[in-house]
């Protein structure tokens, strides 16, 4: 257990630390001017000094990321299922989905603002727009590759299509589903920032515009600091998705199932009936 913690936590932290050290080293050794690139600590300080101002903006970006991710994941899952189940709908829907990914996201901002206003909605739409596609592609692939013999076995047992879907097809697709969700998670924050750039009205309203404002004021440390904050949001969200995959797929790491409350009760029953 201690070894696992060391490997999974300490080593990644070490590599991030080394990266910051490298950054510091380059700035010092090559004597980079602070308006070109600040030292890491200065960037962090630019964030902590303005925390009161930044925190609501950070919460806003997190909210857009999470809502957009969930709507996108749900939509992506739905499209994947629909296309896996009907070749007609597959042919009908797929070109439109591919087309949607061909649209330059940044160009969506203006029309979305016209339709949805300057609020949080257009940002959520942009995040969902980016997130749904990898989920759809992976769910479609997962559902299409479920073992045909297993599906036949379910038919021999007299299983309904609905139960076969819930009990076999969905769990058999968890790995590709999470592959799609992880790709979506890495894009989600980028989507939120693009959304903020493309559909915000004033500089005080969003993290992205705060950064733009800092840039035009030559507050380079703040630009870097806000970028770090955005990165941290992105990584945290990705890690949450990874953690939920670990929780949702215990069979991929465990040999013996954890005792659930439900089964514990059953075992008590079995023990009493044995006597």
């Amino acid at each position: 257990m201690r070894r696992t913690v060391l490997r999974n936590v300490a080593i990644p932290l070490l590599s991030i630390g080394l990266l910051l050290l490298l950054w510091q080293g380059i700035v010092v050794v090559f004597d980079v001017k602070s308006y070109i690139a600040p030292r890491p600590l200065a960037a962090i300080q630019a964030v902590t000094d303005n925390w009161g101002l930044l925190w609501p903006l950070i919460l806003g970006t997190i909210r857009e990321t999470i809502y957009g991710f969930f709507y996108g994941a749900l939509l992506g899952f739905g499209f994947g299922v629909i296309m896996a189940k009907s070749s007609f709908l597959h042919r009908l829907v797929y070109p439109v989905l591919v087309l949607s990914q061909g649209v330059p996201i940044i160009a969506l901002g203006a029309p979305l603002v016209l339709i949805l206003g300057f609020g949080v909605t257009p940002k959520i739409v942009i995040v969902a727009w980016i997130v749904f596609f990898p989920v759809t592609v992976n769910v479609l692939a997962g559902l299409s590759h479920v073992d045909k013999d297993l599906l036949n076995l379910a038919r021999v047992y007299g299983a309904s299509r609905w139960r076969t879907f819930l009990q076999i097809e969905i769990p058999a697709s968890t790995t590709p589903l999470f592959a799609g969700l992880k790709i979506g998670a890495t894009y989600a924050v980028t989507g939120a920032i693009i959304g903020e750039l493309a559909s915000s009205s004033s500089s005080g309203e969003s993290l992205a515009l705060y950064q733009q404002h800092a840039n035009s004021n030559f507050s380079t440390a703040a630009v870097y600091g806000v970028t770090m904050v955005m990165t941290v949001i992105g990584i945290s969200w990705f890690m949450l998705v990874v953690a939920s995959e670990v929780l949702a797929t215990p069979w991929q790491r465990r040999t013996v199932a954890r005792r659930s409350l439900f089964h514990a009760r059953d075992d008590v029953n079995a023990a009493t009936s044995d006597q």
Partner: protein
Amino acid sequence: MANDLLQLRDVGKSFGATLALEATSLDIEDGSFVAIVGPSGCGKSTLFNVIAGLLKPDGGDVRLDGELVTGTAGHVGYMLQKDLLLPWRTVEDNITMAARLTRRVTNDDRDEARRVARQYGLGEFLRYYPHALSGGMRQRVAFMRTLVTRHPLLLLDEPFGALDAQTRLEMQQWLLQVWKDTGRTVLFITHDVDESIFLSDRVLVMSPRPGRIVADLANPVARPRDLDVLTDPQFVALKKQILHLLHGGGG
């Protein structure tokens, strides 16, 4: 006739222009163990899929316990060379899979799963995930899953085909024990002539192009059988007969 669990009448199946299974009639006695041997493409699996209800035959009737079941599923236990265990389910939950696919799993289902698992050497693995088990153990789980469906007829399509020779021998003896305890009727497809004789009361020999049953042989080898029967004169004579039917020449 009254004791026949399964009756096929003129059941045939074509795929396009290919006659996969010639119109076949067959009676399987309740409680018997019938082996089917034949080369690839002789229609063994087509025959199974018709009986299981996965395929609708071009013509003819399939009756199970007197009831017409042609082209409908949900009447038999069915097991393949691939164990098809669900990796995300424990051994216990894999055994109750058929119940989970058709209705709510009850405590009775779970008790029954535990009981058969304990009785046949899987008791300590109930909470294991399948990936942690050996090939032989996995096939035992797959067989238990087939058994708890409570269907009187079990269709086993080369269930031990992927196992090494030693494990296979163990599994054959184990299967005979379970068969004797439970009184089920077994139809067992195999490539292995020794296996077909060692296990069965009766051997059906099939031949390809078109797929058909070319011989229906009673197995005279006395039960219970141990490894010595492999050199029993009756065993050897039957084996010779089957080999000639499969490969031509001689007999």
